[in-house]
């Protein structure tokens, strides 16, 4: 790995903490981002020569704070910037810098930075875009490519979202315990949104598929500063487990491979083991939450040596629990699938009935329904459900997958 590659990773890793601290200091997002940018430029100039600092974030906060103050002074009085020499030796004073920067603020700084991206007025896609820009430091062209929109459109979207956030007022006071828990919940959902944006893109769009890694990185970061939160452990475990199947979810032609047909040797055991370790930790807290339960369900799939050996009994029990703590028609849909594995297609179809109205425009509902009807030998009805699914498909891969199912129908009984 080259020096520059290492420095880039270090800058990305330090970004949430550094921008978060600079935001607290300057109370203005643009000033904080510019100050961080300036500190990064200086890091790229000085680190290869002087060696990387032991605490890159502290270094960047210190240098960023000075350059931000200079920029404000310059704007205010229109005075020339001090000579580079006047403060270039600051980088040597990093020894006690970490002590001077109040480290107890760090976790709230990072949480605040993530939290402002989750403003309830912002639609999901804007929350994702804003978080990737502000917290992760992705460039506008990178984000635009992932969302398949033009750069100027994305630039506009982010600028508008930022204005919205600024207008709403950034909460600078140190949050109380209850508020902190609430913020953690909101930020967790945002991180999971980032993950799902990447997950649903699959291999079709590698630019957004990278969001999965990014979401995992953000969750690890958050868990490091809030190490005792079982739902955060659950969220990280859930994403690691889903991501562990990345190499098996699509075939060579880019077609979707269903969980039961996936080559389990291609699942990433390293990610699975880390997830299982996290889940073990979470369970010790005895405070089940939606992420933990979903992770536990996904873990049962990961633990099964083959699809036939899946513990559907336990999965149904976990879906019962999930329905209680986070009732939603999608959860009930997933439970219906699990029940059908245990008791056959008719039992599953029975559970789908009451969901039909609420999920009538949901792709997966019709895909699942078609699949169960096909299993039950009700091919004509299955065909109708599959047609409906195709009309609602979100991607060419989903469309192709349903076509394959229809092909199976035609083989069984020419229509």
């Amino acid at each position, binding site marked *: *790995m080259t020096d520059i*590659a*290492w420095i880039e*990773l*270090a800058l*990305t*890793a*330090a970004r949430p903490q550094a921008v978060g601290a600079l935001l607290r200091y300057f109370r203005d997002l643009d000033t904080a981002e510019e100050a961080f940018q300036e500190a990064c430029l200086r890091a790229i100039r000085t680190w290869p020569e002087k060696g990387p600092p032991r605490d*890159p974030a502290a270094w960047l906060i210190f240098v960023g704070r000075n350059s931000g103050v200079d920029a404000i002074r310059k704007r205010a009085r229109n005075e020339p910037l001090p000579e580079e020499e006047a403060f270039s030796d600051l980088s040597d004073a990093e020894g006690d810098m970490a002590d001077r920067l109040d480290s107890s603020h760090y976790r709230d700084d990072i949480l605040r930075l993530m939290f402002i991206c989750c403003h309830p007025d912002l639609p999901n896609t804007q929350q994702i875009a804003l978080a990737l820009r502000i917290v992760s430091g992705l460039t506008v062209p990178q984000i635009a490519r992932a969302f398949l929109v033009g750069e100027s459109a994305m630039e506009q979207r982010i600028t508008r979202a930022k204005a919205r956030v600024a207008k709403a007022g950034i909460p600078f006071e140190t949050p109380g315990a209850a508020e902190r828990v609430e913020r953690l919940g909101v930020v967790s959902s945002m991180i999971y949104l980032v993950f799902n944006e990447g997950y649903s893109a699959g291999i079709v769009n590698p630019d957004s598929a990278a969001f999965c*890694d990014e979401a995992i*990185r953000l969750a*690890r*970061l958050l*868990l*490091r500063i809030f*190490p*005792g939160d079982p739902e955060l*452990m659950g969220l*990280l475990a859930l994403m690691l487990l889903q991501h562990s199947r990345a190499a098996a979810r699509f075939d060579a032609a880019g077609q979707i491979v269903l969980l039961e047909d996936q080559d389990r040797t291609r699942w990433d055991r*390293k990610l699975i*083991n*880390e997830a299982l*370790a*996290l889940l*073990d*930790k979470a369970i*010790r807290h005895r405070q089940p939450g939606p992420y933990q339960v979903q992770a536990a369900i996904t873990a049962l799939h990961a633990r099964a040596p083959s699809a036939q050996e899946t513990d559907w009994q336990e999965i149904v029990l976990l879906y019962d629990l999930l329905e209680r703590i986070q009732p939603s028609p999608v959860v009930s849909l997933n439970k219906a699938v699990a029940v059908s594995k245990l008791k056959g297609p008719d039992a599953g179809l029975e559970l789908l009935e009451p969901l039909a109205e609420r999920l009538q425009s949901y792709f997966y509902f019709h895909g699942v329904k078609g699949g169960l009807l096909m299993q039950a030998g009700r091919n004509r009805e299955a065909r109708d459900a599959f047609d409906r699914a195709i009309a609602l498909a979100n991607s060419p891969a989903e469309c192709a997958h349903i076509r394959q199912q229809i092909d199976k129908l035609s083989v069984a009984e020419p229509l």
Partner: protein
Amino acid sequence: MLYAILCYAHEETVFAWSKEEEEAVMGKLMEVQEPLMKAGKLGPVGRLMPTTAATTVRKGKEEPLVLDGPFAETKEVLLGFYTMEADTLDEVVAFSKKLSEVNPGSSSYEIRPFYVFHPNELGKRETST
């Protein structure tokens, strides 16, 4: 004499390596280890999972305390290590609590799951003499 070599690094950067970067680094590290491996002088090598997967058992007033996260104090230093196989974290915590109970003074046990790069049986000579 048996030696343990402990690797310290920035985990945010290490766990952010791309697959290519990871493979390149691991390849170079393997090259360095190979002569020692061939000579039968290299023991088990592993990488600890991220500190987010860590649990710490610390001496408490009565019973040892179980805390989430890595060991964070700076007064104590790393004095030894155990490796064990277990099906659940509970087993490891129970074992660590027992260690903590019989160990006088302040002692903490950081529990870190790890990936084995290559296992082997180094140490036979040491323990048999």
